C-alpha cells in the first residue's frame, strides 16, 4: 500500500520559514549597521567584522568536523554571532581581538552545550564578556572619533565651554559616569551632563564614539523594523527592556534628585538599542512564554540601569543580558501558561 500520509510529531503546520532563512534575515537586517560602522569608523571596522565572522564560521566547522558531527555552519547562526561580536568591540582593537573573541564564543559558548538551540547564553555576548575581562584596557579605549562627530557626541564647539580636555576621550556613557561621580565637587560636571543631554541628534545618527556596531540608533532601527515586520523578533522583550531603562533612568539618573534624569539620553546611548533588539531577543536564549519575555526585558532593564548608575562599568547591556539569559529556564518554568480548561485544585 502506498503511504499517502507523512507521519510526524506536532505541530503540523508547515511554513517556508527555516533556521537558515531566519538567520540570513537577521544578517540582512544588520547590513545597514555594518555599512554605517564602516562609514563612521573607517574600513578597519569592516575588516574587524570580516575577521570575526570568518573565525566564527571556521571554528564551528572545524569543531563539528573533529567531533564527527554534521557540519551546520550553513545555517548562518555563526555568521550572526560573528557580526554581533564585532559590533561589540571598539574600532581600534588589535586584529586578534575579534578572532579570539569569536573562537571563544563558538568553542566555549555554543558547541560544548550541543550547538545551536542548546546554548544557555548568547555566544556573542559571552565572547564580549570574555574579551572585556581578559583585555580590559584594549576593550575600553576608544580613540577613533566617528566621521563628522566627536567621541562623546558633544559638539566640538561647546566642549571648550567648560574647558575639560578629557571629555573628548570618552564615549557618552563614560562621560556620564565620570562626571556623575564628581557631581558634588565639580561645578562643571552638571554642565557636562547637560551638554550630553543636548546631543540627541548625534546619538541618534551614530556620530559618537563607541563599539563599532552600537552607535547608530537610526541604522539599527531600520534593521529592527525589518525583523519585527518579518516577525523574527517580538516586541515584548525590546519594549519592556527599553521601557524599564527609560523609567529607571528618569527616576534615578538625574543630577538634581529624584525624577530628573534624562531617559532619552539613556535609550540612545551605549548598546541598548543593539542589545534590546538583536541580542536580548535571541530565540535560543530568551523565554518562550509571553509573560516570561516581559519579565526578562524588565530584568535586563533593571540590571542595565543599575550597572550604568551605580556599578563599576559605564555600560551594562551585555552583562545584564547574560545574567538574564541564565534566569530563562526559571522564568519559563514559573510563567508556564495554565492548561486550557484546567480547574485549580483545592
Amino acid at each position, binding site marked *: 500500500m502506498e503511504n499517502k500520509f507523512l507521519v510526524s510529531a506536532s505541530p503540523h503546520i508547515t511554513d517556508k520559514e527555516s533556521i537558515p532563512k531566519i538567520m540570513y534575515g537577521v544578517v540582512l537586517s544588520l547590513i545597514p549597521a555594518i555599512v554605517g560602522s564602516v562609514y563612521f569608523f573607517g574600513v578597519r571596522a569592516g575588516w574587524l567584522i570580516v575577521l570575526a565572522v570568518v573565525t566564527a564560521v571556521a571554528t564551528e566547522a572545524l569543531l563539528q568536523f573533529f567531533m564527527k558531527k554534521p557540519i551546520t555552519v550553513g545555517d548562518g547562526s555563526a555568521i550572526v554571532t560573528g557580526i554581533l561580536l564585532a559590533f561589540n568591540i571598539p574600532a581600534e582593537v*588589535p586584529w586578534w581581538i575579534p578572532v579570539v573573541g569569536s573562537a571563544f564564543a563558538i568553542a*566555549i559558548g555554543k558547541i*560544548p552545550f550541543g550547538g545551536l538551540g542548546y546554548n544557555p547564553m548568547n555566544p556573542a555576548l559571552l565572547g564580549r564578556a*570574555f574579551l572585556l*575581562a*581578559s*583585555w*580590559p584596557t*584594549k576593550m575600553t579605549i576608544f580613540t577613533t572619533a566617528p566621521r563628522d562627530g566627536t567621541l562623546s557626541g558633544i559638539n566640538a564647539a561647546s566642549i571648550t565651554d567648560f574647558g575639560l580636555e578629557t571629555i573628548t576621550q570618552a564615549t557618552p556613557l563614560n562621560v556620564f559616569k565620570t562626571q556623575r561621580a564628581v557631581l558634588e565637587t565639580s561645578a562643571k560636571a552638571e554642565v557636562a551632563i547637560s551638554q550630553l543631554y543636548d546631543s540627541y541628534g548625534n546619538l541618534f545618527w551614530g556620530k559618537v564614539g563607541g563599539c563599532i556596531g552600537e552607535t547608530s540608533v537610526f541604522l539599527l532601527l531600520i534593521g529592527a523594523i525589518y525583523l519585527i515586520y518579518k516577525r523574527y523578533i517580538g516586541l515584548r522583550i525590546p519594549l519592556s527592556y527599553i521601557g524599564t531603562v527609560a523609567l529607571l533612568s528618569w527616576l534615578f539618573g538625574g543630577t538634581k534628585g529624584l525624577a530628573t534624569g534624562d531617559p532619552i539620553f539613556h535609550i540612545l546611548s551605549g548598546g541598548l538599542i543593539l542589545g534590546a533588539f538583536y541580542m536580548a531577543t535571541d530565540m535560543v536564549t530568551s523565554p518562550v512564554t509571553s509573560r516570561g519575555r516581559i519579565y526578562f526585558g524588565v530584568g535586563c532593564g533593571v540590571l542595565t540601569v543599575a550597572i550604568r548608575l551605580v556599578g563599576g562599568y559605564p555600560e551594562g547591556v551585555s552583562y545584564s543580558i547574560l545574567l538574564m539569559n541564565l534566569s530563562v529556564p526559571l522564568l519559563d518554568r514559573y510563567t508556564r501558561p495554565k492548561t486550557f480548561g484546567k480547574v485549580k485544585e483545592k
Partner: protein
Amino acid sequence: MPISNEFFKGFYKENPVFKLALGLCPTLAVSNSLQNAVGMGAAATFVLLCSNVIVSLIRKGVPKKIRIPIYIVIIATFVTIVDLVMAGFAPDLHKSLGIFVPLIVVNCVILGRAEAFAGKNSVAYSFIDGLGMGIGFTFALSAVAVVRELLGSGKLWGFPIMGSGFEPVLLLILPPGAFLTLGLFVGLFNWLDNKRTTA
C-alpha cells in the same frame, strides 16, 4: 588487587579532582599559579598520608558512631602541623595560600579517603592509597595551574615564558578562568574514558 593499583588509581582511574569531583574548592581557588598548586598539593598529600596511616592504625578501636569527629581531629592535627611549618619556612607560600591551608581540614579528598579506604584497609594499603591520591590531587591542581598561569600571566613557576608580544588572557587568572579550565579538563577525562570504553 595488587598494591601498585592502589597507587596508580589516584592518577587517572579515580583521580580525586577530575574523576571523583572531590576537593574542588582548593582546585578552583589556588590553581592560579603552579607554585601555589604544588604547595597546596604537597600540603594536602602530607596530611592525607599521615591521616590515612593513623586512621588505618586505629580503625579497629574506633566506635562507628563517632568515627567522623575522630577522623576530623586526626586530620586537624596534621593540618596544624603543616600550617605552622609552612608559616615558619615558606611564609610567602603560606601568605598566598591564605585561608586554604587551614581549610585542608575539611578537604573532602582527605576525609573521603579516611572514610572510604583507610577505615577499612591495612596500614600498608592505606599508605599507598594516600600517596597515590595525594599525588593525583597535586597532578590535577598542577594541570589546571599550568594552563591558567601560562595563558593568564604568560609565566610558569613565576618565570616569564611567553614572548613579550604575548597579551595575557586575564580572565584565566580570575575565578571564571578556574571554572572554565577545570570544566575543560573534566570534559577531556570523560572523553578519554568514553574513547576507552567504546574502543
